[in-house]
């Protein structure tokens, strides 16, 4: 039997309290401009193809747009993070290598990646480009994060939205990598990078195609007793004529379990961690990420503005409290008009 040393917290502790970077989504150049103007410290974006996890029609950037986005952000002292965070296709991984090269050539500050093949390529061919571990890598422990740091030189890891606050604190205290957490946005109830439900139904998944429950597979059908929303062949939800309808993301539908019809996996809700921002800051979290590259530029601007104020407040004020105006603003943009602390709170335990 061989014994492994348990990492010593004091030897690997992250640096002390600092103001976390506010990282905001840019699905378009307009969203990028608005995020920067609203106070984002960094924006993240992806190319117009399957190399990123928000591969939606009409979204994302071509080379000229990335160049312009980088110019705009850099002129104001902000950073641009490029997500190449799907898994390279076995039959032809070259678009992923090319995406890494483009990130470097177009002046991005950071590459966000999940696939060890993409990380290794970047490490070898674009070593000067800072590497962040994408949430799609599902690194949920400090051992996992240290694995990516030691082998692939990642400087920061984005944590999956499945950990409690105590677990986030524990991870931050035991890794030399910076920690980024999700602050606000659409809630994925499954561990990112570990969900093949979408490919089970449609053949396309976040890992392989950068999409979940893709619009190309959605069908709405008017029936005598209401409206049916299908994904591929599967009935995800059926709405009465007067019921509000949601996009049929497959884990957010209503299904029968033991004869009971309910949201068996997840109700449509949004993650909102404003209330625990001071604890996240105290834990040494290096960055707070806003989800929503697929959302409108107005969403990006307003949510960024609220979080800018909240982070500044949390870092400066000794007594932090969520301002009613912030909550009211965010509620306008929350999916299903409900907020949850998600896994961060005990209710999921």
């Amino acid at each position, binding site marked *: 039997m061989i014994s*492994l040393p348990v990492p010593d917290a004091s030897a690997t502790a992250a640096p002390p309290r600092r103001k976390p970077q506010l990282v905001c989504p840019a699905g378009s150049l307009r969203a990028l401009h608005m995020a920067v103007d609203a106070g984002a410290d960094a924006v993240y974006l992806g190319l117009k193809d399957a190399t990123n996890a928000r591969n939606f029609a009409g979204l994302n950037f071509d080379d000229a747009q990335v160049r312009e986005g980088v110019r705009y952000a850099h002129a104001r002292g902000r950073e641009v993070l490029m997500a190449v965070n799907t898994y390279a296709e076995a*039959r032809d991984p070259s678009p992923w290598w090319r995406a890494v090269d483009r990130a470097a050539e177009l002046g991005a500050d950071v590459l966000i990646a999940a*696939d060890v*093949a993409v990380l290794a390529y970047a490490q070898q061919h674009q070593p000067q480009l800072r590497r962040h571990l994408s949430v799609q890598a599902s690194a*949920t422990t400090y051992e996992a994060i240290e694995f990516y740091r030691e082998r692939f030189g990642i400087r920061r890891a984005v944590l999956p939205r499945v950990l409690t606050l105590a677990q986030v604190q524990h991870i931050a205290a035991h890794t030399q990598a910076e920690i980024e957490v999700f602050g606000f946005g659409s809630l994925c109830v499954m561990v990112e*990078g570990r969900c093949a439900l979408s490919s*089970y139904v449609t053949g396309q998944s976040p890992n392989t195609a950068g999409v979940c429950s893709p619009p190309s597979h959605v069908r709405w059908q008017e029936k005598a007793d209401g409206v049916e929303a299908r994904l591929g062949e599967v009935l995800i939800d059926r709405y009465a004529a007067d019921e509000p309808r949601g996009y049929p993301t497959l884990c957010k539908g209503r299904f029968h379990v033991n004869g009971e019809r309910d949201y068996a996996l997840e109700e449509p809700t949004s993650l909102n961690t404003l209330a625990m921002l001071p604890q996240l800051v105290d834990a040494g979290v290096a960055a707070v990420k806003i989800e929503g590259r697929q959302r409108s530029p107005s969403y990006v601007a307003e949510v960024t503005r609220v979080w800018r104020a909240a982070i500044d407040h949390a870092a400066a004020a000794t007594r932090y409290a969520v301002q009613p105006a912030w909550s009211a603003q965010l509620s306008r943009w929350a999916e299903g008009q409900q907020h949850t602390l998600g896994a961060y709170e005990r209710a999921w*335990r």
Partner: protein
Amino acid sequence: MMNVHSLPQAAAPRFGLTVGPLQYWWPRQATWDFYAQVADSAADTVVLGEVVCSRRHEIRFEDWLALAAELKAHGKTVVLATMALLAGEPELRSLRRVCEQGDYAVEAGDASALALLSRLHAQGARLPFVIGPHVNVYNQPALQQLAPLGASCWVPPLELALDAVACINPPHAPVQGAGGAVATEIFGFGRMPLAFSARCFTARHYRLKKDACEYRCRDDADGLLLSTTEGDPFIVLNGIQTQSAALHCLIGERDAMAAAGASRVRLSPCSGSFGRVLQLFDAVLNAGASASDARAELATLGLPGALVNGFAHRQPGLREVAA
């Protein structure tokens, strides 16, 4: 001069049969009975251990080790699996215990396990490890990164098509791992683990908290079925894991799996008729029995769901495609 026609035909290589880790919480006696049956079966390898939820204490680590010893005595190769989703220090402690025992190879369920196993390999650990299906290897360079850390076998992600598997670990130029070529083991039978969450869906269904779940997943030997509003079986809730309601079944894909470089097939336990499932796979894969006859019999065994194979053919996983 030798008559070429009298030469024995090169025997088709035997497919190794692996019994995958038990995904459900079965009563102790049911678990023991299941593995007693496996001990006398055609299975070559048995993967043991709790892979879904650390709250399941019915079978403890020591019990798995005792089972491992029994199965080894029956000539089986035993692999100990680690959990797919780890979240805190207690789970890391369990992981260390699995990785640090030196008697059985370990199957990595996530990158935390890769971290420990690669460190042990660098320190001279004797046994290679298995890259489990929940480690995201989707292309050859990824396998080339991980295999040299000490792997001898790779189980591709469930959603990966056979043509992709062939590109990643080609039969004629396999990726090299610890001590030679990496074997490919295809998930070939059973309900498919499709997703993991921090939330326990079984507890949620019963309006219970995860920390006080009353271990209700014990009530459903093959998971808790979720059907669509029009009554079609869709997925299965198994604690924090979500599975397909249908069973992946590649009994008709013998040649396609061989062409993709697979030398082993994984069968995932279900509560009934599993012994017969093993016999049928062995007969078809290794003794030339008819796949269509075997598949027809499988459909009569009262298995918990329909048989599908879409993922193998780059189709939605819930589809059944003519092999």
